[in-house]
């Protein structure tokens, strides 16, 4: 126990002294939050200019309809959709602020994994609203593509494109219902700003915990692991100290980000005990992921790359850069994403939900942690983790 605390204390002191934690876990996410919040979070419905959207698409293309529906119902931009044969011309003539060209065969392309680039034409009047819509549209297209790919991989290959798009629409509808139910439970979802703060805190949490367990690899490269292992200290204690370091850094950084974010951007995350439980569960999930990474990576460099990729994937789909309304199969995957669970949990607490209302997101995060720890046991050791 004493050895555990001694090692953790020195680790923490070294991390604070080299300032990398301060930069990567606090300064960078705060700066990003500020920028994104300026772009998205500071505005609420009504602040953003309404947009006239001219859309050209095959009339019977169902997934094109899904994208258009998504844009029309963002909740933050008031969109008037008109069908158009030539959005370029409409935008050029000033009769539309934003043009969107959905290529013909869009649904077929998406469901077979072919590229299907959606083009946008920004008019002078599109402004910030236009940016937001383009971002959302791209997000939706990516989700649809991901869902199709996942569906194909899951054995749904051979479906008629028609049937596939019907399925997609059904999943979308079902998703909408799930969200409604959740909205009822929490009575209110996170504002865009709150979502960004939570998503960014979650994303950078993935980086922050890397300063813990991945430090084992650095210790091996520095040669100090050999000395530690020659001392009257158990190998498991050495690993546990790294995990504890990650945990402390993660809790502190996330706590600071949520606190500073909520003050700067005027977001209320709700009751402190429930938020604290969410933070602890998220940090446990993130820390346990590093146990998997440390088994996979041979060098500190590899570990950082792997950790960054995982952080970005989980962070993006968890809503770190823009609010994603998860749909279809991707939605199911996103549901198991600890960062998404974290932001969803914060949505519940900010809507007034207490400890009893956050069972599901907490269970998802702890389940994620358990799976990671199990995986890290199963993956053969590459020599670092003692």
């Amino acid at each position, binding site marked *: 126990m004493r050895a555990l605390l001694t090692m953790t204390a020195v680790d923490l002191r070294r991390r604070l002294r*080299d300032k990398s934690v301060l930069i990567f876990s606090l300064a960078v996410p705060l700066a990003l939050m500020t920028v994104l919040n300026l772009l998205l979070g500071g505005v609420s419905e009504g602040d953003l200019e309404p947009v006239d959207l001219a859309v050209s698409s095959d009339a019977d293309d169902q997934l094109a309809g899904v994208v258009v529906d998504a844009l029309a119902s963002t909740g933050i931009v008031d969109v008037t959709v008109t069908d158009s044969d030539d959005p370029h011309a409409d935008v050029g003539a000033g009769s539309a602020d934003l043009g969107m060209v959905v290529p013909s065969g869009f649904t077929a392309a998406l469901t077979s994994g072919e590229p299907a680039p959606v083009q946008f034409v920004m008019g002078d009047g599109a402004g910030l609203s236009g940016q937001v819509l383009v971002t959302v549209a791209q997000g939706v297209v990516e989700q649809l593509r991901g869902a199709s790919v996942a569906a194909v991989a899951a054995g749904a290959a051979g479906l008629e494109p028609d049937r596939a798009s019907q399925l997609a629409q059904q999943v979308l509808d079902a998703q909408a219902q799930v969200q409604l139910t959740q909205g009822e439970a929490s009575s209110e979802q996170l504002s865009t700003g709150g979502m960004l703060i939570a998503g960014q805190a979650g994303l950078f949490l993935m980086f922050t915990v890397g300063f813990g367990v991945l430090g084992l690899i650095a210790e091996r490269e*520095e040669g100090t692991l050999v000395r530690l292992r020659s001392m*009257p200290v158990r190998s498991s204690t050495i690993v546990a100290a790294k995990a504890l370091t990650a945990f402390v850094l993660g809790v502190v950084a996330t706590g600071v980000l949520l606190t500073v974010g909520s003050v700067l951007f005027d977001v209320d995350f709700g009751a402190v005990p429930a938020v604290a439980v969410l933070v602890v569960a998220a940090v446990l999930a993130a820390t346990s992921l590093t146990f998997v990474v440390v088994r996979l990576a041979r060098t500190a460099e590899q570990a950082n790359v792997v950790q960054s990729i995982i952080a970005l994937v989980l962070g993006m789909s968890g809503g770190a850069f823009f609010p994603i309304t998860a749909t279809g199969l991707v939605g199911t995957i996103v549901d198991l994403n600890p960062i998404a669970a974290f932001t969803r949990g914060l949505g519940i607490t900010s809507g007034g939900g207490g400890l009893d209302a956050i069972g599901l997101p907490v269970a998802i995060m702890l389940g994620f942690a358990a799976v990671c720890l199990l995986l890290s046991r199963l993956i053969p050791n590459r020599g670092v983790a003692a």
Partner: protein
Amino acid sequence: MGQDGTSTDVVQVQDVTRSFGDLQAVAGVSLRIAPGETYGLLGPNGAGKTTTISMIAGLLEPDSGTVQLCGEPMGPRHTKIRSRLGLVPQDLALYPDLKGRENLNYFGALQNLRGKELRARVDEVLEVVGLADRAKDPVKEYSGGMKRRLNIAAGLLHRPALLILDEPTVGVDPQSRNAILESVEALSGEGMAVLYTTHYMEEAERLCDRIGIIDSGRVQAEGTRDELIHLVGELDQVRMDGTGDLTAATDALQQVPGVQRVDPVGGGLVCAVADAPVHLAAIVTAASAHLELSDVEITRPDLEQVFLHLTGKELRD
């Protein structure tokens, strides 16, 4: 002494082996070290020194064989007994961002030293390795030799029964090297058992009470320096330079007891003799009768030659 395997031996290694894949790095090594004894493992790169040490230090599980430290089994799962061990790894094992003293405080704390005792021990080992005046500087500002010295200090803090030094002088300037050798000498004088690996034969000769010559994962021969040299029957060489009647001098020298052979070299003669210092006076007297001597020099056979004899290889390439 260690060879009899008495229970006072600090470390007893019994026929350990270890392979990495197809490569047998250690093919059966046994050794014992008594308190106060310095044992040298002398061998070239890749001989298996570090692998042997890793098994003795409990970092690596032997494929077969046993290691005992202070009468107790030693291995990766035996944690407590490691407090009797001080390891100075071949590669530096220090935190460059921490100060010299902070490094020692940390390692000392992990060896269960606290408070006053910890402070006193840190001061003491800093003194031993001559770094007391640099303790406040971050290790990254140290010279290579200073880092090596601090690396050693960290292994000494808890007064281990066995100190293992794995090539502690590699890449070190002569001044630091001398400081390191002196501190090792002082430590064994205090009763610490020392296991010292090196591929510098002069270090093994200077420091070690007994030496094991290791190559290809096996101890090829073991004993005191003199035992090792007698083992291969090498003779001392007395070289005399001078002018005069070399033939008459050769005949006279061949009558001197102990002299086995006399050969001409350059401007003088070389006698091969069993124990040169004992016979030196007689040799010089015999030679002086026929030669005007300008220089006399004794070369004793060294471990380099022993190694060559045992393995057919040079110790250093």
